[in-house]
């Protein structure tokens, strides 16, 4: 295994985790439409109990995504998290609210009342996907930071910090870029689409399923419009490229070129988009079809994976700096050492085993669809 292979391999693993995380945002998406999907208290509880059995996967994937990014590309961890402070803090804040909301909302002794925690779930359902989508957009649009490693040898400085954000907003400035918002809202509506498809599949309730088909149109239309708009923008925009010496420069149509150079990513992207559209279309057209989450979910993973890899492979700076082009992060200049990447490569071989027991346990839990009887049991949320 060469160092270059390991850099690409870890970029793939982190991108895959990111893609799975976007798919698992169905939890957030369903929570954001819980009030309209389940119009009665019982209906809302069905939705929350359905997503409540999966929220830990989203959470765990987020944590693992962070850990894997830290281990493989520590300069990104250092630059983005320390720089875009407010962006990440708001994301984390809403995820903390989500984590406790399931367990606390309907317990006796909940002094804040169930509606408070249902509001937290809705808040996380909108803000989480919006800002995570926005964060993904910065991989293409750039961020306002500077990296200067020589600061570490400035012993006269009060704090010899190497990564600095070049404005005082600490990440919130990204939301002033309309294309960041376009992708952010595309992810919000994608999460809703996936959430509705998931609940329709997981909950055995005719009212929710029939309402789900209608709500699906309301989420799918803005998603498709926003996603297509961003995809066209991406393919036409200039991108951040680097040469063999690591010199970073702007290249016209870089992302379009990437998809043409890496045709297999284009195929993955197209298959992914088609699968998402099949999942949506078949569910809307067929009254009895409830399996849309499967093609749409797989399609989401493939689409996001292709986009993330397009942002980093083929000599592309995956975390570009708009303040100082040469500070942009590439998989070469921001990765861990060869030893660490190799060690982590062997650890990553455990992933299929982990996936196998997750699927096994998940199937065992979901083999009977959730219904009104089940939420009367003692441990329902």
């Amino acid at each position: 295994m060469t160092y270059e292979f390991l850099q690409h391999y870890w970029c793939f693993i982190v991108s895959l985790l990111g893609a799975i995380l976007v798919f698992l945002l169905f939890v957030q998406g369903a929570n954001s439409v819980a009030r309209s999907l389940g119009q009665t208290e019982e209906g809302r509880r069905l939705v929350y109990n359905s997503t409540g059995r999966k929220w830990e996967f989203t959470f765990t994937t987020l944590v693992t995504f962070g850990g894997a990014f830290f281990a493989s590309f520590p300069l990104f961890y250092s630059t983005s998290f320390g720089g875009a402070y407010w962006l990440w803090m708001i994301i984390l804040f809403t995820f903390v609210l989500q984590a406790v909301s399931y367990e606390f909302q309907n317990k006796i002794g909940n002094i804040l009342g169930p509606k408070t925690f249902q509001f937290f779930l809705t808040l996380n359902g909108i803000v989480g996907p919006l800002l995570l989508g926005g964060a993904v957009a910065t991989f293409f649009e750039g961020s306002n930071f500077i990296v200067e490693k020589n600061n570490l040898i400035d012993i006269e400085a009060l704090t010899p910090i190497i990564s600095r954000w070049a404005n005082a907003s600490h990440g919130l400035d990204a939301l002033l870029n309309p294309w960041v918002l376009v992708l952010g809202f595309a992810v919000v509506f994608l999460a809703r689409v996936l959430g509705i498809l998931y609940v329709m599949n997981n909950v055995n309730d005719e009212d929710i399923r029939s309402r789900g088909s209608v709500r699906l149109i309301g989420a799918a239309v803005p998603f498709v419009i926003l996603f297509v708009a961003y995809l066209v923008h991406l393919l036409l925009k200039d991108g951040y490229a680097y040469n063999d010496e690591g010199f970073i420069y702007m290249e016209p149509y870089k992302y379009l070129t990437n998809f043409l150079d890496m045709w297999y990513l284009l195929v993955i992207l197209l298959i992914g988009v088609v699968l998402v559209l099949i999942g949506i279309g078949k569910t809307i057209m067929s009254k009895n079809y409830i399996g849309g989450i499967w093609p749409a979910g797989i399609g989401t993973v493939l689409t996001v994976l292709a986009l993330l890899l397009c942002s980093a492979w083929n000599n592309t700076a995956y975390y570009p700096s708009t303040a100082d082009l040469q500070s942009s992060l590439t998989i070469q200049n921001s990765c861990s050492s060869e030893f660490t990447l190799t060690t982590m490569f062997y650890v990553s071989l455990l992933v299929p085993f982990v996936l196998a027991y997750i699927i096994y346990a998940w199937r065992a839990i979901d083999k009977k669809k959730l219904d009104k009887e089940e939420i009367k049991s003692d441990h329902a949320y």
Partner: protein
Amino acid sequence: MINNLFLNIDAGTIDWSRAQFALTAIYHWLFVPLTLGLAVIMGIAETYYYRTKDEFWKETAQFWQKLFGVNFAMGVATGLILEFEFGTNWSNYSWFVGDIFGAPLAVEGIVAFFMESTFVAVMYFGWKKVSPGFHLASTWLTGLGATISAWWILVANAWMQYPVGCEFNPDTMRNEMVSFAEVALSPFAVSKFCHTVTSAWIIGAIFCVGVCCWYLMKKRHTKLAIESMRIGAWVGLVAALLAAATGHKSGMDVAEVQPMKLAAMEALYNGGTEQGLTAIAWVNPFCQPDYQNEEAAPLKIDIPYGLSIMATNDPKGFVPGINDILNGYTRPDGTVEPSIDEKIERGKKAIQALAGYRQAKFASSDNGEIAAAHLKVLQENMQYFGYGYIKDKNDIVPFIPVNFWAFRIMVGLGCLFILFFAAILFALWKKDVTTLPKWHYWVAILLIPLGYIGSECGWLVAEFGRQPWTIQDMLPTWAAVSDLDSGSVALTFFLFLILFSTMLAVEINILLKQIKKGPSL
């Protein structure tokens, strides 16, 4: 340099960043030990059910699992914040040692978190959906996942106390891992894991026994109370004895690699051989003592030879004091530990050599020989690199009162818990525990907060004692922070304070109501 234009760091940023991390860690450690401790208790209860098929044990297991669930989510939530705070608040740290430090966090996610989150769902929702054996396995795997998670996070923490298995790379300007085995199996990590996890079991046991005593006092759910109390007391006694043994090993580790921390824990200003362990002394809890001029803390009463035995396993062992470490000392084997001033000088020399090396290496002309000369100086002084960022030798003395009192509270409560669990087991063996005087039950109930205080004190010793280092001898806090203004960090500190405190209040209230409601027997 261009980015100095954007320099907005002030000393407040460092303090607020420390405060925020401490706040998150302290809250996290309110929830995690109960998760780890209750995992054992509910696992044992369900194992009884699996073996006997007695519905009583099923209800008992479900009762403890219900309390486990209320607590579990907060542990998960605060843990998420902790992981990301390394990036958000300690960005320089994340680059400088991310090559080593990131690996345990990633392994934790892949190996432990998924196990925990997968099987906790089966544990709660699988009673009627999976076989009893699968369910029992899921219950234990939930606890095992939490314990493996503790292992990896303690590997990471132990590495901050005792950085091993790494080398500094002057080309990338960071430390890089050279031995994963040394990092993952560091003796410091092994001691830390054993001591921390056993202390967590103590909290689970105290909580269990306290709840049972409340039922006995109220004369409700008597059978569940007695049987759970038996489990809790056995788990607690074994854990407390193991915590004492592993605590001794931890003390020896600290003496070897963090002598300043040990000196602060003991308020040992001037060391030597045949050192006594301070049983009690007057150390003002609110201000740093005048260690440079005082011979010893006032009103000091020693346990003869105690400290030498704790630190070296030898009653005549040498233990350096704070002034010895500041001024340099000679060990009994004749080796010399340099003074802090000398370490600072050598640290500065290392940093200057690094600057020279990079200038020569990345200059357009071929300066290979000059770069090699600088590299040689860097390597000779690399051991003291972190000291180059220290302005004053007294900056490396941690705040003594916190270390001194936290250590005493931890050890004192640990001894109390051994007696407590032994007394409970004696009472279960010899007496009818349903008819004890009321104050007996109250003692057990009131010990619950003391369990948390003892455990948090352990963390205070571990983390305050390492100050000012984020990584011992390698990177002080002010060289590890992010480029943030103190107002931003102060704001997030208070946001998290309000959030965590509110959620803690809700959790405690829910737990109390669940306990009052009791199992559905």
